[in-house]
């Protein structure tokens, strides 16, 4: 009998918890019918959901950008739209639970930041359109064959860095440069893609890219130091989650070796980079908001091509330039509209 009481207890707990879940989910019952009633209403209330993969400054800026766009439209939260935010905090099993929660409800729009989040959602959410933000390369992520030809239910903003821009800035500052270096993270799909794109952009300018892999914060420090011994003319650090979180380490290595540092993240200019060409994540959110509006107003996401972020921030740091004994030519300042 004891055996049965154990099993009975377990299944009782299962049934109880399932019941709680069903009760909390009651308002999705027969939602298809309710929704068609909804659409007859005069004023439109948009039910939007935003999913983050992990807490990072980039995804926070994206969210601010989305909210800023809605504000500029004169939309007010809770009267014109609701924005339910989920965050899987870097955990893949939680991400799957979130995808389940999101797909069981009806949304007018689902927005998701970062690659894995969108990959799960595009598979699970079939009834609501998806707009992605903060995805480096939507093609490698599997969302389509090109920016125009893509899955029918998804569109969004790619935050791929402006590689040609920064390489151009570097060649203006150092006309004779032969080699640049970066630390990259093989574990991050964006990092590998970015490294390859930077390699292309550099070789177009006749520069060789030396890249050293790192898998953890401590390895980033070692990789940065070993780069300095590879006869590079400048650090040109790509942006990925790992190296972005410890860019100070790489900048320190570059200062110790007196090799100028260039980056793709705005805040690195304060940390001592000579110049940056940064995608503006706030702008990415803003652009995604614009796409979201199109989708909400009835445009099918399948017909909207993916886009790059519309704004890149170019900055230089004079103090850093003096430290590395680098001259900032007038041509650079005028071309990129920079002030000394």
């Amino acid at each position, binding site marked *: 009998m*004891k*055996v049965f009481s*154990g099993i009975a*207890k*377990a*299944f009782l*707990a*299962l049934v109880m*918890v*399932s019941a*709680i*879940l*069903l009760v*909390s*989910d009651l308002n*999705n*019952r*027969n*939602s*298809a019918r309710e929704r068609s009633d909804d659409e007859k209403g005069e004023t439109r209330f948009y039910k939007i959901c935003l999913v*983050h993969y992990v807490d990072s400054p980039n995804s926070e800026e994206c969210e601010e950008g989305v909210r800023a766009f809605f504000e500029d439209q004169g939309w007010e939260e809770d009267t014109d739209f609701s924005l*339910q*935010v*989920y*965050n899987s*905090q*870097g*955990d*893949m*099993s*939680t991400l*799957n*639970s*979130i*995808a*389940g*929660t999101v*797909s*069981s*409800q009806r949304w007018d729009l689902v927005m998701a930041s970062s*690659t*894995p989040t969108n*990959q*799960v959602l*595009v*598979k*699970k959410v079939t009834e609501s359109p998806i707009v992605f933000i903060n995805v480096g390369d939507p093609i*490698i*992520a*599997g*969302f389509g064959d090109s920016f125009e030809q893509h*899955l029918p239910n998804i569109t969004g903003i790619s935050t791929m860095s402006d590689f040609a821009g920064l390489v151009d800035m570097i060649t203006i500052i150092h006309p004779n440069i032969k080699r640049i270096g970066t630390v990259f*993270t*093989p*574990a*991050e*799909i964006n*990092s*590998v893609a970015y490294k390859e794109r930077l390699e292309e952009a550099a070789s177009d300018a006749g520069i060789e890219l030396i890249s050293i892999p790192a*898998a953890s914060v401590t390895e980033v420090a070692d990789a940065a130091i070993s780069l300095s011994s590879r006869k590079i003319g400048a650090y040109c650090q790509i942006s990925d989650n790992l190296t972005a979180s410890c860019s100070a380490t790489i900048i320190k290595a570059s200062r110790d070796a007196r090799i100028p540092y260039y980056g793709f993240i705005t805040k690195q200019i304060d940390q001592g980079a000579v110049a940056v060409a940064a995608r503006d994540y706030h702008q990415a959110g803003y652009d995604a908001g614009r796409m979201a509006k199109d989708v909400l107003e009835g445009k099918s996401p399948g017909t909207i091509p993916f886009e790059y972020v519309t704004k890149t921030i170019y900055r230089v740091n004079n103090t850093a330039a003096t430290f590395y004994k680098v001259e900032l030519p007038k041509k650079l300042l005028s071309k990129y509209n920079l002030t000394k």
Partner: protein
Amino acid sequence: MTLLIGSVTIGLILAMLALGIFISFRIFDFPDITAEGSFTFGAAIAAAGIIAGLNPLLATLLAFIGGSLAGMITGFLHTRFKINPLLAGILVMTALYSVNLHVMGRSNLPLLSETTLFTWFDQLSMSISGEDATSMILGWEVPSKNLWTLLFCFLMISVISTVTWWFFRTRLGTAMRATGDNQQMIRALGVNTKLMIIAGIALSNGLIALSGALLAQFQGFADVQMGIGMLVWGLASVIIGEALIAEKSLALLITGAVVGSVLFRLLVAIALRWGMNPNDLKLITAAFVFLALILPGFMKRIKKVKI
């Protein structure tokens, strides 16, 4: 209802992870950290295999074998070189990180347009009940294909649990359990305990890799960071199951691990559905595990007071 079905499905897929962790941590008393590596290893093998054109079933089987090999290495490191179990697990897990990257060729493999085990069930559902068919359950509209997926996961975990239960009751399995309980005693009876440990950890990691392979196909991609945190979730499921069932019989402990895993996913789904502040999610899950741990003891005390 879709939410309930989805959560139970994820719970059943991760139940294989819980079973694997139950074998290493409970039966062998071997704190095996390889899990986080072998989970991803399974996902990587399955995804790379499917993309290379392998039959999804074969790719999933290969994932099981791959995971077992990883477990074998951990067991071998421990028994042959006398490396502490924790450290042996850390070594293999760390090495697997690079291996996973090599298997996948990059850090993330999308399976969105590939044929996986789960696409088979979508197709099966389509051929039986028609495209986009829905069923009504208690007034909820549910896509039929979700039901098929759930049924498949349920059958799969039932078969695996039964086979595991049967295996641990054979002579070999009994010797394995005895190895975990009292190594000196069973060695005195002439059993090669080293071999038992290696085989046991291999089985455990095989199941974990199988779970990873299925999750990758379920969610539509494999990612090299998939395994992060899985060990903790699996262990939490095992502990919840144990606390709930509070019995020592093997069949019940195995059932407990499976039920614990499903229960845990349901609790997470409730927390998410209530729309709690996302920053509090981990705090809430920790509170759930804590409650599951103290509740059974608390109930017993209440009963005693009544008498």
